C-alpha cells in the first residue's frame, strides 16, 4: 500500500487533546521519511460532548496525488488501523452526529489492525467487540484509559506509546526512528517520551482475530427516510408520555428509540436496592432521565439511556448504595431491579463482586483539583512503577492496588 489510513476512536472532550496529538504525531512522523499526510476530525462529531464517542483520522501517502484521493471526506470508508484509547468503546460506537451503533472494528480492512489501550485480557475485550467477516489483528498497549479535559492535560505518555506501537504495526510508513525524531521535536515532546515510545514498540502485544470471532449481536441500526417520507416543516413527532411500571405504580418514561446513549458510558451505576432510602435524589438529579420509578419506590437506571456521568452516586446520601463501576466488567444492559427482584441473594453476590472490584471502581474521569493528574501518575508508579524521571508512567497500572 502506498497510502496508510488510521482512525482514532476516543471519548469526546476527555480525550480530544490526546487524539489530536496522536493524529498530528502520525503525520509529522511520516513526514520524517518524506511522506505527505493530513490529520482531521469527524466534522459531525464537533462540537464534541463529554464522553460521547468521537473520531479523528490520519492519512499518510507517498505522494500528494495519492493523498488527494483521501481528502475532502467526513470519514474514510476503510482504515488500515483503528486506534482505540478507551477499551469500553469495544461495545460499539454511537457518535452524537450519526444513527445506530457502529462496531469499533467496522472500518478495518481485511488483515488490518485494531490497537487498543487496555488492561483486560483478549478474551474479555472480544466478548464486546462485534465479530467481523474478515480477520484482523488485535494489538494491545497495557494501560489505563487516559482521561483529562479541555484545558488541563494528563501527561501520562499515552500519545507517544500509541505512536511507538504504530511504528511496530506499519513500519513501512512510520519507522521507530522517525517517530522518535518527531516526538522529540513536538512542543510536548521530551527524551522521556521518546523512551516511552521505544518501550511501547518493544512491548506491543498482539493476536490474530479470526473471521467470525467476537460478539455475535447485531448492532441496532437506523434507515434514513427518503425526502418525501419526511414530515414537512422540518418537524418530527414528539416522544409520547411514559406509563406506570406495573399495577398502576411507579413510572417509566418513553424514551427516544433512535438514540441510545449507552455507548457514551465508561462507568455505570450499580445500585443496592436493599439500602436505598427512596430519597428521589438520583432520579431528580439525572440529566438523562434514565431512572425508572419502580413500584416499590426504588429507582432502576435504564442502561440504554444512562451515559454514566456519576451524578447519581455523587448525590446519593447512602454509602455504597450507588457505586460507579467500569463498563468493561458488564456484558449487557439488563435491568438491575429485575435481577434483584428475581433473586435478592444472587443479586447481592453479583453486586458485591462488582463494587468491590478495585480495578473497575478506580475513577480518573477529568479534572477535580490542581495537581490531581500528577498525583494519579505518582500513585500508579507507587504501585510498582519507577519514578517519573526514569520510568514510564502507567506502564505498571495493571499492578495498581487501591
Amino acid at each position, binding site marked *: 500500500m502506498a497510502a496508510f489510513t488510521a482512525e482514532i476512536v476516543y471519548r469526546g472532550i476527555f480525550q480530544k487533546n490526546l487524539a489530536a496529538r496522536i493524529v498530528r504525531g502520525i503525520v509529522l512522523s511520516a513526514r520524517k521519511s518524506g511522506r505527505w499526510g493530513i490529520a482531521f476530525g469527524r466534522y*459531525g462529531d464537533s462540537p464534541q460532548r463529554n464522553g460521547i464517542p468521537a473520531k479523528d483520522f490520519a492519512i499518510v501517502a507517498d505522494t500528494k496525488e495519492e493523498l488527494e484521493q483521501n481528502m475532502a471526506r467526513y470519514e474514510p470508508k476503510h482504515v488500515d488501523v483503528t486506534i482505540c484509547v478507551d477499551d469500553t468503546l469495544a461495545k460499539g460506537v454511537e457518535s452524537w452526529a450519526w*444513527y445506530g451503533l457502529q462496531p469499533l472494528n467496522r472500518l478495518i480492512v481485511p488483515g488490518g489492525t485494531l490497537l487498543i489501550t487496555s488492561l483486560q485480557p483478549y478474551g474479555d475485550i472480544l466478548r464486546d467487540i462485534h465479530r467481523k467477516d474478515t480477520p484482523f489483528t488485535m494489538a494491545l498497549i497495557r494501560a489505563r484509559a487516559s482521561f483529562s479535559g479541555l484545558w488541563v492535560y494528563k501527561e501520562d505518555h499515552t500519545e507517544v506509546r500509541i505512536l511507538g506501537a504504530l511504528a511496530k504495526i506499519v513500519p513501512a510508513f512510520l519507522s521507530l526512528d522517525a517517530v522518535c525524531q518527531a516526538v522529540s521535536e513536538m512542543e510536548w515532546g521530551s527524551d522521556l517520551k521518546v523512551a516511552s515510545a521505544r518501550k511501547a514498540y518493544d512491548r506491543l502485544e498482539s493476536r490474530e482475530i479470526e473471521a467470525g470471532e467476537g460478539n455475535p449481536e447485531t448492532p441496532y441500526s437506523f434507515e*434514513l427516510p427518503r*425526502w418525501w417520507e*419526511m*414530515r*414537512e*416543516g*422540518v418537524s418530527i413527532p*414528539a416522544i409520547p408520555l411514559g406509563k406506570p411500571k406495573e399495577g398502576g405504580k411507579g413510572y417509566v418514561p418513553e424514551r427516544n428509540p433512535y438514540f441510545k446513549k449507552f455507548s457514551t458510558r465508561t462507568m455505570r451505576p450499580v445500585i443496592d436496592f436493599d439500602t436505598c432510602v427512596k430519597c428521589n435524589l438520583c432520579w431528580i438529579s439525572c440529566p438523562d432521565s434514565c431512572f425508572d420509578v419502580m413500584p416499590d419506590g426504588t429507582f432502576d437506571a435504564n442502561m440504554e439511556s444512562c451515559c454514566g456521568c456519576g451524578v447519581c452516586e455523587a448525590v446519593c446520601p447512602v454509602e455504597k448504595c450507588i457505586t460507579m463501576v467500569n463498563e468493561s466488567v458488564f456484558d449487557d444492559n439488563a435491568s438491575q431491579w429485575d435481577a434483584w427482584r428475581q433473586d435478592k441473594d444472587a443479586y447481592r453476590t453479583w453486586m458485591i463482586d462488582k463494587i468491590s472490584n478495585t480495578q473497575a471502581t478506580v475513577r480518573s474521569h477529568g479534572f477535580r483539583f490542581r495537581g490531581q493528574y500528577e498525583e494519579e501518575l505518582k500513585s500508579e508508579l507507587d504501585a510498582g512503577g519507577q519514578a517519573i524521571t526514569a520510568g514510564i508512567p502507567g506502564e505498571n497500572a495493571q499492578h495498581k492496588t487501591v
Partner: protein
Amino acid sequence: MAVETKAAQAAEDKELLISGSEAVAEALTLADIDVVTAYPIRPYDTVMQAIAKKISGGQLQAEYIVAEGEHSQFEIVKHASMVNARVFCGSSGVGWAYAMECLVVTPSLRVPMVALVGNRALDDPGAFGVEHNDALFVRDLGWMLCWIDTSQEALDTTLIAYRVAEDRRVFLPLAISADGAFLTHSQAITMVPPKEKVDRFLPRYDRGDLQLHPDNPITVAPQVNEDWVIEIRRQTNEAMKRATTVIEEAYTDFRRVFGRGPENPWFEEYMTEDADVILIGMGTISLPLKVAIREMRAKGKKVGLVRLRWFRPFPTDRLVAALSKAHAIGVIDRDYSFGSPFGSGVVANEVRAAMYNAATRPPLVSFTGGLGGREVTLEDVHKVTEMCFAAAASGKSDVQTHWLGVRE
C-alpha cells in the same frame, strides 16, 4: 392596468381614494389577520400606520406589536404563524436586511407569512427612494416574490397572497414588493370589496399537523447534519414548484368571486400582440413606459411592454412564449448586480437565462435605471427603444448594460 371594474361589482365594492399602503391595510382587515408587528422605516411603515388606525378604530382585531427591531419583528410573526395565527409583517431596505436571519428560516419551516417590502435603496448612503435589491435578497431562498404597481393591485394581491401562501400544497412565505413613494405614498381610487366576498375567496389558515400546540406535540427544526439537509431543501423546492399551479388557481378564483383581476397572473402585457420591441420592467416603472409606448405607437413604432408581477416562482414558459414574438427585448432593471454577466441587473440576467433554451432568441438589451428612486423619464424610454430597434436591425444583443438618467 388589467383591472376592469364591472358595474355589478362596483355596486357592492366601496370606492376609496387611498395609497398603496392603505390599500394593503384594507386587505389585511378583510383577511382578518391575527398578529401584526411594526417597526419604523420608510417607506413601508405607512402600511403599519394605516393598520394602527384600523386597530384603534376597531375595524381590525389583531395583536398589534411594536417590536424593538426588524429582527424581532419577523421572528414574532414567524412564531405566531407556527401556532396557526394569520400574520403580517414588512420592512424596507436595510430594515429588511436586518431581518435577514429571520427571513431565511421561514421557507424550510413552511411558514406562510405575508410581508410587504416597500422597496428602498440600501445604505450607504441613506436614501428613501426605490430600488429593488432589498426584496431581491430573498429570491433564492424559497420566498415567493411579486411586484405591484397600483393601489388596486396592492389590495387584490394581498388577498391572493394569503390564499396562495396558506395553501397546504405551498406553505411558503410571500413578499409583496411596492415601489417606495410612487406606490406607498400616493393615493388612487381603489375598489374595496365587502367581507362576504373575501370570505368566499380566502379560507381560514389551518396549519394542521404542522401546528405547534400541546394537542399536536411535535419537535420543529431540530439540528441536522449532512444526512438531512438536502432532503429538506428538496421539500422546499417541490413546494415552490407546486406554487405555480396554486397561483393560477387563485387568480381564476379571484376573477370568479370579485369579477376583476388579470387573465395572466404572472405578467401584464401591454400592446405586445404586434410589437417589434418588447420592454420589460417590474413595479411602477411600467407607468412612464406605457406613456412612452403610446407616444411611439402614435409615431408608428411598434413597442410593447411586459410588466412582471411574479418573480418567484418565475413564469419561464409563459414569458418565453410572450417574448419570442419580438424582434428585440429591452429589460429595464431598477436594481443592480455588480459584476454579474454583462453587468446587468437581476431581471435582465433572469430573462437571459429563461430564454436560453428558446427556439427563437431575440436580441436583448439591458438597462439599469431609476436607482434610488430617480424618475425614469420619457426621454430615457425613447433612448431605450432606439437602442432596442438598433439591436433588432443588427440581430445582435448588446454586450453592455446601459445606465439610464445618470449624469455622464
